[in-house]
């Protein structure tokens, strides 16, 4: 992803390639003997090299975040690492004026994304699934923001929100003294302003996921439903929506992860200044900002990690259960 953070959704893809029959048997035990020593080494390398790279850069660092969260370290030489127990967390929860607002904004981010662009994306998907004319044109328009870099989206929306020269204030005449509205700087407004931009992008993403889900709905279900005299809304509510369950799971996971990952847009928009602090911004400010406190930054990252794992672990367990049953 993305930091171009487009969250991705691994799920049991069951899109069989053309001409695929799927017997579920694996190489039986007896065939093991057919593997020469060279084959075993080849296999070891094929799986080993990517795994080592992935684990070294992603998991070792994640574990290091956990370990460092309980220490202070100036980054110069390993002997200056000092164990401080829960001090970083204590300071974070009790003294950091930005921590609770940041956590709250991450929650608000999720709530807004799931409440507005997600249903809107579903609505658009249902409409565009009707094989109407110009469907492709509409789809492209809604999907375009998903393709763009979050950083570019940040710049584009800055042009809309700029208090002096932006589109909104120019139209409503709020760029004059006395009527001035500062969409980017005002801590009561800027989070909502940036959430409009985030929702703008999220809608298209959700639309595409739901369109894919709708393609998997058996057309005979729809026919049966309309033969029974159900109207469009009843058909959707009682027949179509229940079959979208797997898609809804993915949508939920994607949306939570997007809300936890949100960074680029806010950083470009106003550097995560007052009003738009997020956990990701706090972690990053600890590296590229004024004060680089490794242990403290890691403690914030651990909070982010714990929240993420609460979502990731159940999701993966259910996904892989399905896999094994398949």
């Amino acid at each position: 992803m993305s930091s171009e953070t487009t969250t991705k959704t691994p799920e049991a893809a069951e899109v069989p390639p053309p001409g695929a029959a799927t017997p579920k048997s694996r190489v039986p035990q007896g065939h093991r003997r057919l593997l020469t020593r060279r084959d075993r080494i080849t296999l070891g390398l094929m799986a080993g090299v990517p795994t080592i790279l992935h684990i070294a850069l992603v998991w070792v660092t994640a574990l290091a975040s956990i370990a460092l969260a309980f220490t202070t370290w100036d980054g110069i030489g390993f002997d200056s690492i000092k164990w401080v127990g829960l001090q970083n967390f204590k300071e974070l929860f009790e003294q950091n004026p930005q921590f609770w607002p940041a956590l709250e904004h991450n929650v608000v981010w999720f709530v807004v994304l799931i409440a507005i662009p997600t249903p809107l994306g579903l609505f658009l998907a249902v409409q565009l699934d009707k094989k109407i004319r110009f469907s492709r044109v509409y789809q492209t328009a809604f999907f375009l923001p998903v393709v763009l870099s979050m950083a570019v989206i940040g710049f584009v929306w800055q042009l809309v929100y700029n208090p002096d020269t932006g589109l909104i204030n120019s139209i409503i005449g709020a760029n004059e003294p006395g009527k001035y509205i500062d969409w980017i700087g005002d801590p009561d407004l800027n989070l909502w302003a940036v959430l409009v931009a985030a929702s703008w992008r999220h809608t298209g993403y959700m639309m595409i996921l739901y369109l894919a889900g709708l393609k998997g709905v058996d057309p005979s279900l729809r026919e049966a439903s309309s033969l029974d005299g159900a109207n469009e809304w009843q058909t959707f509510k009682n027949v179509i929506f229940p079959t979208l369950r797997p898609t809804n799971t993915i949508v939920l996971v994607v949306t939570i992860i997007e809300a936890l990952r949100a960074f680029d847009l806010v950083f470009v928009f106003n550097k995560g200044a007052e009003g738009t602090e997020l956990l990701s911004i706090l972690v990053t400010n600890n590296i590229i900002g004024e004060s680089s406190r490794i242990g403290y930054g890691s403690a914030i990252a651990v909070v982010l990690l714990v929240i993420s794992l609460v979502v990731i672990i159940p999701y993966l367990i259910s996904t892989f259960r399905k896999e094994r049953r398949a």
Partner: protein
Amino acid sequence: MSTTVMTKVRTPVRPARVLLHLFLAGAALAWLAPLLWAMYSAMRPYAETSEKGYVSWPDKLSFDNFTNAFTQSDMGHYFVNTLIIAVPAVLVTLFLSSMVAFYVSRFDFRLNLALLLVFTAGNLLPQQVIITPLYRMYLLIDLPGITMSGKLYDSALGLVLIHIAFQSGFCAFVLANYMRSLPHELTEAALVDGASVWRMYWQIVLPLCRPAMAALGTLLSIWIYNDFFWALVLISTGENMPITSALNNLTGAYFTDPNLVAAGALLTAIPTLIVYFVLQRQFVSGLTLGANKG
């Protein structure tokens, strides 16, 4: 555009449909508005907009801001930087993740589920979870003579590595599912005939995965091109930045001229848009590859 000639198979115009089209067209326009606005701003000279205001009829529309943004900020150089990072990252990610996928989908070693779990979960983590130790690690790794900076930090190599490590999780997962659906007889026959494991992967399985590889390749190219965060933290010299993070610096330098910033942002978006329009099908199928329940 109504024609007076009525064709026989003309569905009657239903008011509901007309309403729906009106709604969709309106919404689509609203969705494009911010981009159209950026385009409009970028095509007007700064002097004119500062005099007449931004919401005004144009006297002169031109691409001057685009050429200025491109030449003044040496954008070409940053595009090249992005290429140097994105091309190897996409190719190596596909290569490595297809090998892992081959291993877990064709050979029933006990590890494979755990392996796939590790990869997939790793890919779902927010990047900020790992950035602090990663940044320190990059600063500690000396590569004298290998990278310009003499470290992994502030080098294209460092960015390529993290992109590979981070993205291979998703790709391994999708490809493993794809390979599982290929008939097993294919490789079993080869195995009995004494073909090597490498040949099985390289000559039998990989060619069959072309559609999935194309979809993932498209997706990866766009994601890696669009990356902002890794480069922001792991690159310090402006010269070494890829285009998206370079844009951030440029806007810092030209923030007094929104028209120029608009042009720069649109220029940055162009390659992504080209890839998307050319490979739209692959991109969308890549995005939904995981979400499809056939």
